[in-house]
C-alpha cells in the first residue's frame, strides 16, 4: 500500500473519473502525474516505444474544457491511456516492436478501438512495448526497450502486452490496450499485479491490430481493477464493419451487475490441471485457496470441476496459433530471419512441423471443447484457476534458455483463447520474493459483465490490486 503521506493521484481509473467530476483534479493534472512517473521510471522499466506528450496534453486540455462546458463522455473522459504498439494510432507509425513490419503499416490512422477510446474522451499517452508481433520473449540484441517488471526490475513483465502491464503497475497511465492470443493480456497483468480482461472472441474489433493469429486474437484492457476493465471495455466493445468477426449483439452495461455480491453465482474450481505442477511456487496454492474463500464470503457457491479436453485444446491452440502466424510471416522469415527476435523466429518456424490436416483437426478440437465446455457452464457460472503457477520469471532465467518451455508451461491462460470465452485475472497475493500472483476467472461467451461483477466483488474485499511497487511509491508488497 501507499505511504499515508504520499500525495499521489487517485489510484484507479474509477477513482480518477470520480475525482474529475468532483472538481478535485483535472485531466491535465492526471496527465502531469502520469508523465512525471514516466519521466522518472521509463528508462528503467522500458514501457514506452513512443510518447505523444504534446497530443496528450492537447487532449487533456480539451477534456477539461468539455467537462467544464457540461459535456461528459463517460468514465474514460480525461483519463491517461496507453496503447500497445501493435495497435494503430494516428500520431505515428506502428512497429509491433519489430524491424520487419512495413514502416507505413497503419500509419496515421486509428484502429477502431483507438478511435472509440478517443470518442470516449481518453487521453492517449503513447505507444508501449510488446513482444515482437505479440509473441515470444525479449531480445536484448534488438533496438527496442526491454520491458522490466516494476515489482522487480530483474524480472520480466510477462508478454506480450508488456508495456501495458508495467505501465499500469507503475502508474504511467490508468489503463491500456492489450491483445491476447494465448494469454498476452492476462500474463503481463498477472506478473505485474494489475487486472486484465480478455473479452469474448468477437466482442471487440481487431482491425487495425497487427495480426498474430486471426482466429485467436482478442483485444482488451489492462487496468488496476476489474471495475476499471469493465469501464474500458464499455468504450471499445461492439460490432465494427471492418472486422467481420465482431459480433452484432448489443453491448450490455458491463458494470450493471457489479454490486459487491456474488449471491447465486456458482463457481467451478479447477485444480486438476492447474495445481501441483512442475515449477509451482509454494505461495500459489495458499493464495488461490484464500481467494476462493473471499469469493465464498461474497456469496458464491464453490464446486470442484474439471475442464474438458484441457491438454488436447492446448495442442489445438498451439497448432492454430503457429500455423496462422507462420502463414502471415513466412515471406519475411525467408529473407529477414535474423531481423526477427530470437524467440519469435523459432516459435514461428515451428509452423513448418504442422500440416493442413493438423490445422483442420485443431479447429474440430476447438469446437468439441466449446460444446463440452458449454455442458460444464450449464452447471456453473464461472470457472476459477490460478493464472500462473509462479510469479514472473527473471531475465536470468529467460537468458538461460532459447525459448523457455518451462515458463510457457507455468501459465494457464491459453485454453480460454482456444475456446473464445472471456477471462479475467485479478491479483491475489505475492510470492515470498514479492512478485504478484493472480486469480483467473472465466465465463460463458459474452458474459463479461459477470466477470466484472466477480472481480469487483473480490476487490471490494481485498487490496492486492491497490498495492503499488516500492519503485513507484509503495511501501510494501
Amino acid at each position: 500500500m501507499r505511504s499515508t503521506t504520499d500525495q499521489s493521484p487517485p489510484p484507479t481509473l474509477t477513482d480518477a473519473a470520480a475525482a474529475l467530476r468532483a472538481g478535485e483534479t483535472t485531466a491535465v493534472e492526471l496527465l502531469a502525474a502520469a508523465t512525471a512517473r514516466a519521466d522518472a521510471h521509463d528508462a528503467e522499466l522500458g514501457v514506452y516505444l513512443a510518447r505523444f506528450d504534446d497530443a496528450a496534453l492537447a487532449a487533456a486540455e480539451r477534456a477539461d474544457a468539455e467537462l467544464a462546458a457540461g459535456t461528459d463522455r463517460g468514465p474514460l473522459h480525461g483519463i491517461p491511456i496507453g496503447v500497445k504498439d501493435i495497435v494503430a494510432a494516428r500520431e505515428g507509425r506502428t512497429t509491433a516492436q519489430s524491424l520487419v513490419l512495413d514502416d507505413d503499416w497503419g500509419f496515421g490512422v486509428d484502429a477502431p478501438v483507438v478511435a472509440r477510446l478517443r470518442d470516449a474522451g481518453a487521453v492517449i499517452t503513447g505507444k508501449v512495448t510488446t513482444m515482437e508481433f505479440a509473441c515470444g520473449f525479449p531480445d536484448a540484441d534488438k533496438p527496442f526497450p526491454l520491458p522490466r517488471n516494476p515489482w522487480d526490475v530483474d524480472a520480466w513483465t510477462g508478454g506480450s502486452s508488456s508495456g501495458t502491464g508495467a505501465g499500469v503497475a507503475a502508474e504511467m497511465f490508468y489503463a491500456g490496450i492489450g491483445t491476447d492470443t494465448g494469454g498476452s493480456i492476462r500474463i503481463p497483468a498477472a506478473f505485474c499485479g494489475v487486472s486484465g480482461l480478455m473479452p469474448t472472441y468477437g466482442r471487440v474489433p481487431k482491425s487495425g491490430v497487427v495480426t498474430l493469429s486471426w482466429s485467436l486474437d482478442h483485444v482488451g484492457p489492462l487496468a488496476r481493477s476489474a471495475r476499471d476493465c469493465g469501464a474500458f471495455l464499455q468504450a471499445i466493445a461492439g460490432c465494427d464493419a471492418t472486422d467481420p468477426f465482431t459480433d452484432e449483439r448489443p453491448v450490455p452495461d458491463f458494470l450493471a451487475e457489479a454490486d459487491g455480491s456474488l449471491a447465486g453465482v456458482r463457481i467451478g474450481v479447477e485444480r486438476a490441471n492447474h495445481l501441483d505442477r512442475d515449477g509451482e511456487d509454494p505461495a500459489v496454492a495458499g493464495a488461490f485457496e484464500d481467494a476462493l474463500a473471499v469469493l465464498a464470503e461474497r456469496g458464491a457457491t464453490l464446486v470442484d470441476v474439471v475442464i474438458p479436453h484441457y491438454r488436447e485444446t492446448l495442442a489445438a491452440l498451439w497448432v492454430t496459433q503457429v500455423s496462422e502466424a507462420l502463414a502471415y510471416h513466412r515471406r519475411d522469415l525467408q529473407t529477414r530471419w535474423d531481423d526477427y527476435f530470437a524467440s519469435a523466429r523459432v516459435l514461428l518456424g515451428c509452423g513448418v512441423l504442422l500440416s493442413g490436416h493438423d490445422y483442420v483437426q485443431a479447429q474440430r478440437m476447438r469446437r468439441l471443447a466449446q460444446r463440452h465446455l458449454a455442458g460444464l457452464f450449464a452447471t456453473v457460472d464461472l470457472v476459477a484457476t490460478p493464472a500462473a503457477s509462479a510469479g514472473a520469471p527473471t531475465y536470468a532465467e529467460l537468458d538461460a534458455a532459447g525459448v523457455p518451455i518451462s515458463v510457457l508451461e507455468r501459465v494457464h491462460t491459453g485454453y480460454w483463447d482456444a475456446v473464445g470465452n472471456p477471462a479475467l485475472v485479478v491479483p491475489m497475493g505475492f510470492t515470498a520474493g514479492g512478485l504478484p500472483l493472480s486469480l483467473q476467472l472465466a465465463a460463458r461467451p459474452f458474459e463479461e459483465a459477470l466477470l466484472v461483477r466477480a472481480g469487483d466483488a473480490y476487490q471490494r474485499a481485498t487490496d492486492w490490486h491497490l498495492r503499488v511497487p516500492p519503485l513507484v511509491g509503495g511501501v510494501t508488497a
Partner: protein
Amino acid sequence: MSPALLDALLAAAGLDDPSPQERAEMLALHATFEDGIAALHALPECRDEVPALVFRAQPPLDVWPAD
C-alpha cells in the same frame, strides 16, 4: 519428429537460415505438443465435429484502413 524431417520441411518452406541450435529448439517445442497433436487425430469425437471455421459468401462490409 526427426532432425532430418525438420530440415526438409524448413527447406520446403524456404526457410534456410535457422541455426542448428534454433532447429533443436523447434524440435523441443514441437515435442511438448506432439502427444496432444496426435490426440487431435485420435479422438473419435473430433472426426465428425464441425471445424471452428466459417466461410461467408459475402465480403466484409468495409475495410481498414479506408481507401
